């Protein structure tokens, strides 16, 4: 048997991800996190009626990140994530978890070379691509400024 035939056999015999199941779980949990976010935002608006929209969304994100930090620290978020999949990865809470979890993991190697060095091990690519994309977009806006009306 050559490698190609074996690859075919592996595809046939080995179990695959049940996409429908994971997608439904992701949809429901991702949606639930967004609802929690909206709830936080609404509560903040009730408490601080004079808050601008920018500040409101900023404080909502800060609250969500703090909650994730606490849940990650107590080892709850990974259990939630193993069920939710993409539903817990894509919202801001997933980003917070991906920064906090390596920081906890590498605590034993000290603050500088352990925590700080490894903190962005997983979130790093998101930051790089996010920054790069905004630079490219910035250039596009700069060049086609007229077309955007100003």
């Amino acid at each position, binding site marked *: 048997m050559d490698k190609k035939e074996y*690859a075919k056999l592996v595809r046939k015999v080995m179990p695959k991800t049940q996409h429908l199941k994971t997608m439904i779980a992701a949809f429901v949990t991702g949606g639930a996190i967004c609802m929690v976010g909206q709830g936080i935002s609404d509560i903040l608006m009730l408490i601080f009626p004079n808050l601008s929209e920018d500040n409101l969304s900023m404080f909502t994100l800060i609250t969500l990140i703090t909650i994730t930090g606490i849940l990650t620290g107590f080892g709850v978020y990974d259990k939630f994530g*193993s069920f939710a999949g993409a539903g817990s*990865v894509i919202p801001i809470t*997933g980003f917070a978890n991906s920064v906090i979890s390596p920081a*906890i993991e*590498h605590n034993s190697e000290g603050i500088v070379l352990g925590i700080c060095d490894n903190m962005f091990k997983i979130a790093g690519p998101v930051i790089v691509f996010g920054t790069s994309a905004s630079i490219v977009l910035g250039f596009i806006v700069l060049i086609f400024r007229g077309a955007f009306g100003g």
Partner: protein
Amino acid sequence: MDKKQGATLFFNNVYVASTSSIAGEKEGEGPFGKYFDSLLKKDELGTKSFELAEIRMHTYAIKHLLFKTKLAPEEVDCLLMGDLLDEIVGSSYSAREFAIPFLGLYNACATFGEALAIGSVFIESGFMQRVICSTSSHFSTAERQFRFPLELGSQRPPLSQWTVTGAGATLLASSGGDIKISCVTIGKVIDFGVTDADDMGAAMAPSARDTLINHLKDTKRKLDYYDMIATGDLGKAGAKMFKLLMQQEGYTLGDNYQDCGAIIFDREDSDVMQGGSGTSCSNIVFNGFLYKKMLEGVYKKILLLPTGALLSKTSTLQKQTIPAVAHAIAIEVK
């Protein structure tokens, strides 16, 4: 009989004199829980890091073996040890606790088989009277070594396996007891082009087949010669693949075949997906369960086939395929 036939070495005077085992919480809840000498209440073991916990566990396995056999360290000729940590520090740090000559080994999850094979040669040759073969692995250190941080909320893919937390040690001696290592077949590194680092079962199944078929040819034995043929950590799907591959070559594995990884955990436990893996998987199943069953006379002839996927995190990121190795160890009651 010749001492060597193909890749198989035959021994007359290698005895499995005693074993010890220690296992983690989750392993303790599995079907073999009551057979392990000791169980961890907490996987951290009160240490600062999981690496230190693994070292403490490995040290305990050897200390407990010396205690059980009432041997002083000076009476042991060599330690053959391995684990999954970087530069196998788990073994080296554990070995510094003992004034015993030390050889560190690495064959990934097949390290226990490698240690038994080398230990048997040392004893059979007459150079050594007693050697200790031991390996350890820890779920939390292996996750960091090969995968993601523990607290990361990611989903485990359906093919993934759960690294066994545990350590075990085997005392091989030139005399003592009824249980002998009759022969070992040393495996070749086989690569069938699997690149998915989560799919270790499929990566290792061809190597297990190659070693088992070589073993049967060299020894002129049939599959039903053994009461139990146990592969190391192919997992549930990997074991199915292994059976299929053997079938293609005209060998039908029956009820006397088990995979240590597929049976070590509680079947209802959904976290473990395909089952256990790791250097201590086949180790604690043998040292904890199989050896005790041999002493009781339930099994008379066992073929242990630890399997190892020889990958690293770097090789995976560089899109390299996964080579694998398996060694066959035949253990028989005299």
